[in-house]
């Protein structure tokens, strides 16, 4: 385990910083179902942190806890060193945490562009009145943010569908638009829930590239859930493994891969 206070250096030479988000003894119950049982782990500045585990292990629930959508019965979330008070999800988002969803949650009635623009809500400050008249500040703000969004759109190579209503897009593109929406927020922590589900290898490659580039170029910290072991092993710096709400492993991909509990509960056969 690499648990030096001030971070570590990865194999390919990236510098990982201190802890930005720490989950402490989180327990989450739904009626009788215990979705998360006393789990603790941390996420460090600049790293790609994977969360894996069998279906129903509580991974998505964990992201929801981080987003503030689920409130754990026990435990604490520390963000940037400070315990986070209970917050509404949108307040969490304002702190620079953006995410994508397992079952795509795009705004189906809107165009791709508008969807991505909603990602920039944090940067929209003009009042209702000024917007109603569409002059001066409102128009300027709209244009500035549009520029930022266009950068994201270029980056993810979805220019050609900019004006298409998202309802018409195929699954894979939707996932990409969702990523664009999250990126538009210029988050410091990006949570991705199975970003590559339902994609073929080529598309996964594209997606991997985007994720790595985001991480690289903007230094964005990324937490991701993924079932494709290839992706997880290649991309992530550290991996948490959950099973039935419990943490059964935590470490570098190699450590996790050779952990017998993980093999039994999740991998089945050892993956190469």
């Amino acid at each position, binding site marked *: 385990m690499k648990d030096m206070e001030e971070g570590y250096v990865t194999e390919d030479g990236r510098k990982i910083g201190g802890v930005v988000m720490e989950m402490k003894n989180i327990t989450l119950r739904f009626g009788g179902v215990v979705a998360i049982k006393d789990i603790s782990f941390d996420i460090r500045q600049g790293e790609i942190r994977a969360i894996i585990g069998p279906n129903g292990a509580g991974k998505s629930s964990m992201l*929801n806890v981080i987003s503030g*959508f689920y409130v754990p019965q026990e435990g604490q979330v520390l963000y940037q060193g400070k315990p986070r008070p209970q917050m509404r999800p949108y307040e969490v988002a304002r702190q620079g945490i953006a995410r994508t*969803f*397992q*079952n795509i*949650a795009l705004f189906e009635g809107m165009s791709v562009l508008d969807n991505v623009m909603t990602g920039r809500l944090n940067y929209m400050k003009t009042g209702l009145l000024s917007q109603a008249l569409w002059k001066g500040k409102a128009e300027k703000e709209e244009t500035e943010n549009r520029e930022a969004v266009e950068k994201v759109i270029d980056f993810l190579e979805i220019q050609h569908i900019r004006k298409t209503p998202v309802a018409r897009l195929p699954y894979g593109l939707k996932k990409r638009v969702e990523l664009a929406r999250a990126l538009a927020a210029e988050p410091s922590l990006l949570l991705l829930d199975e970003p590559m589900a339902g994609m073929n290898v080529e598309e996964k490659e594209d997606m991997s590239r985007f994720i790595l580039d985001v991480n690289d170029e903007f230094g964005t910290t990324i937490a991701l859930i993924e079932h494709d072991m290839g992706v997880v092993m290649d991309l992530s710096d550290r991996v948490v493994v959950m099973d039935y709400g419990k943490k059964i492993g935590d470490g570098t991909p190699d450590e996790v891969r050779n952990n017998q509990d993980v093999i039994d509960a999740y991998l089945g056969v050892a993956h190469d």
Partner: protein
Amino acid sequence: MPEQLIFAMEVTLNGLMAGVLYALVALGFVLIYKASGIFNYAQGVMALFAAMTLVGIMNGQVPFAHLINAVFGGHITHFGWTIPSFLAVILTVAVMVLLAWLVQVLVMKHLVGQEPIILFMATIGLAYFLEGVADLMWGSEIKTLDVGIPQGINLWIDETTYNIFGYGFFIDNLDIVATVVAALLVTGLVIFAQYTKQGRAMRAVADDHQAALSVGISLNFIWVLVWSVAGFVALVAGIMWGTKSGVQFSLSLIALKALPVLMLGGFTSIPGAIVGGLIIGVGEKLFEFAIGPMVGGATENWFAYVLALLFLVFRPQGLFGEKIIERV
């Protein structure tokens, strides 16, 4: 016992009875909502249509007589026979089944998988259509409906309560009949929805039209079935309310009395319709009794809604409604 308390008891009892009458209308809504996620605005008009058809059949009226006379001249109005009420009810049920089938084939079938508000809108169109057809068919003048349901004060209750409290309670015979009928209907419907294969299929359809299709549930069949049952419930409601106030346009407005009931009980719960009805009935009557005189009366219409609203703030899906699933 203080007089006010006795009165309040009487008001409560009558509120319960009125609630049952509301619930009868609400039941029709619940059925269709449960089976398709459609908020069937036409339910009130269906009650009107059913009642008009029943009267028309009983009196041997010629359907569309007015139209025929206007277009071709002539003075036909009646066939010249009357039909006993029992037979007429059966014939009316048949008409309602036919209506259900037409609705399915002409409207709902083409709107599978659309958003709820679109389906809602379609039922509004249907309501207009049906209202026009009902008027064209049977004429818009007021009609008297008498299928032999007793009406008026129940003397036995009057006497008994008089002996106990020194004040005879007023309970309407019609309300008693309605209560019995409602109890039977609800029992039957609950069993149907919860414990039969069709009932399960019906709930599946409400959740996801496409998925229901994909496992081989025939939307056609389920919807015709449910609309027929809803038509039958509408007929029952139409008979009860029509006996009370005559059969005429305003009968379709009873839907408005059913909405708060529906909201409070939950759109998807059959027992909820009854419980909601009882709460609304008692609530509005008591409010009118206690607070009404201070604010000038006629509070019942809005109070029912406000009461339901208050409940909803605490339980957004109504008392017995299915929990609204919120997940990402």
